[in-house]
């Protein structure tokens, strides 16, 4: 195990030669007192209750919580797939969501879904080129050049540009999805449990890929997960949510240095953060367990 970690860390040290990209100017997200109730006339399911989060441009935020805590609802609101019942969401001072405005998705906030949503009828390259082409932002030649460039930068994905998504491994598919989001120069990248169904080794590799991408093309990232260790390892700030109704229970500031390496998971700082996080979710996990939830953070 130690040997393996050592190998991984020497690789990542190689990658970390590239300095951290400067903090972007755009991508300041404010979620202010947001509540979301489904079926307000009838069953009144309160998915979110009075949630407030502030994310600085270029920050990596992780949201952790048991299933049903409203983390996906929160992401859908930010992405513009759903509206809020109360409160508001602002991106760089501009209103994204209010109770009265209809939800509006946009290419400045692109989501990578947990089950993958690459278009299976398009090749990897066509998938990546889709955004710039439908928005008429680039010509086909420009889009192709940019897509190939990004794919090459993300661990040699240019080699599979002509393949169809079902021919790729799930790790590769997820990376292609991240590239498809990045080509649109989004202000925020929304990742909804992207590594959920992966084994530990693939997950570790994917973490390195994601951290590498974050380092080179720094964006505001909102990362949803139920895996506490993953959240602390990747993020600058972790918010822990409770379920029914979904509220924010605590915020953990992760002051581990970047670049992050897998050995950091053994450091005392990391373990202290983990202990702190476990303490804060323990009560929640117990509640969730008692409710018969199999999955808890």
């Amino acid at each position: 195990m130690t040997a393996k970690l050592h190998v991984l860390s020497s690789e990542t040290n190689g990658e970390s030669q590239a300095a951290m990209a400067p903090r972007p100017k755009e991508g300041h997200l404010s979620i202010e007192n947001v509540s979301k109730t489904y079926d307000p006339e009838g069953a009144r399911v309160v998915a979110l209750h009075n949630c407030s989060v502030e994310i600085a441009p270029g920050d990596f935020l992780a949201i952790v919580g048991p299933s049903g805590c409203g983390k996906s609802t929160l992401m859908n609101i930010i992405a513009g797939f759903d509206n809020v019942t109360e409160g508001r969401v602002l991106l760089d001072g501009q209103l994204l969501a209010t109770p009265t405005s209809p939800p509006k998705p946009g290419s400045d906030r692109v989501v990578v879904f947990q089950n993958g949503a690459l278009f299976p009828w398009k090749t990897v390259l066509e998938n990546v080129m889709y955004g710039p082409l439908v928005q008429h932002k680039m010509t086909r030649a420009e889009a192709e050049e940019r897509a190939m460039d990004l794919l090459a930068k993300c661990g040699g994905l240019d080699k599979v540009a002509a393949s169809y998504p079902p021919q790729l491994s799930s790790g590769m598919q997820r990376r292609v999805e991240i590239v498809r989001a990045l080509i649109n120069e989004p202000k925020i990248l929304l990742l909804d449990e992207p590594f959920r169904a992966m084994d530990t080794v693939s997950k570790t590799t994917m973490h390195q890929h994601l951290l590498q991408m974050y380092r080179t093309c720094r964006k505001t990232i909102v990362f949803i997960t139920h895996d506490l260790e993953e959240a602390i390892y990747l993020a600058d700030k972790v918010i822990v949510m409770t379920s029914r109704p979904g509220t924010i229970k605590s915020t953990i500031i992760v002051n581990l240095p970047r670049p992050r390496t897998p050995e950091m998971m053994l450091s005392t700082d990391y373990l202290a953060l983990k202990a702190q996080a476990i303490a804060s979710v323990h009560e929640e996990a117990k509640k969730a367990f008692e409710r018969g939830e199999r999955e808890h953070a």
Partner: protein
Amino acid sequence: MLKEGAMKAVEASVNNSVVDPLKWHRRLPKLNWRGGFAVGAFLIAWHFLVLLKAPGFKEISSPVEVLQTFINQYLGNPNYWNSWVASFKRVIYGFVLAQVLGIPLGLLLGTRDTFHKLVYPVIEILRPIPPLAWVPISILFWPTTELSIIFITFIGAFFIIVINVHDAVRNIKKEHYWLALSLGASSGQVFRRIMVPSVIPSIAVGMTLGIAVTWNVVIAAEMIASDSGLGRLTWEGYVSHTVPVVIIGMISIGLAGYLSTIVVDYAEKKMMPWRTTR
């Protein structure tokens, strides 16, 4: 010197144009020898059962008899080949019409709620009626027998494709919709680039089922109402008690159906390159 060079060039070009028998052989699809063996075994078993006058086989012709009748009376007979043409025409008209009308109707039913509420109950009532139950009405309604048979054939494939496309539209992954919208697609682009490709696999399923049903229906309809086609040929063989003709009719129908399936499979592969290159 010049002449020699020219000769060599001609020789080379001749050599190139002659197809290398080995390579030519390789270009053929790999023969399924097991399938050939099974067909052979079936024919031999059939032949011996007839020779031994096994129960039920007393009035059945042997494959040799059938082959002799076929070669002597049908192979060079234009009437026989016209039966093929007649049946194929009906299948193609009925099948294509079912796709052309059924696919848009399925898309409309899947996407427009008011239209769905208005039209879907009618479809649900008409759908369970077997195509052959349409024969009497169809003969009364359409001015010619030909049109009524095409109509019945069309009915056979139509509801299958409508239901398949309708279900596919309703089951499109919402993530695909959302993503297309957040990547900046307009509603027209979502329709063309997300909805249409999403339902292609179901259209393919509808086509596979549709072509099989179409052959079923056309043969039955020909037996009941027509004076041409492979169904009629088989029926005439029965009525005139010439068993080899019945069997020639049956095998012809089988081969025609198989040919249609090959064409449909090929079309499906072309429609879904992402499925075949897996």
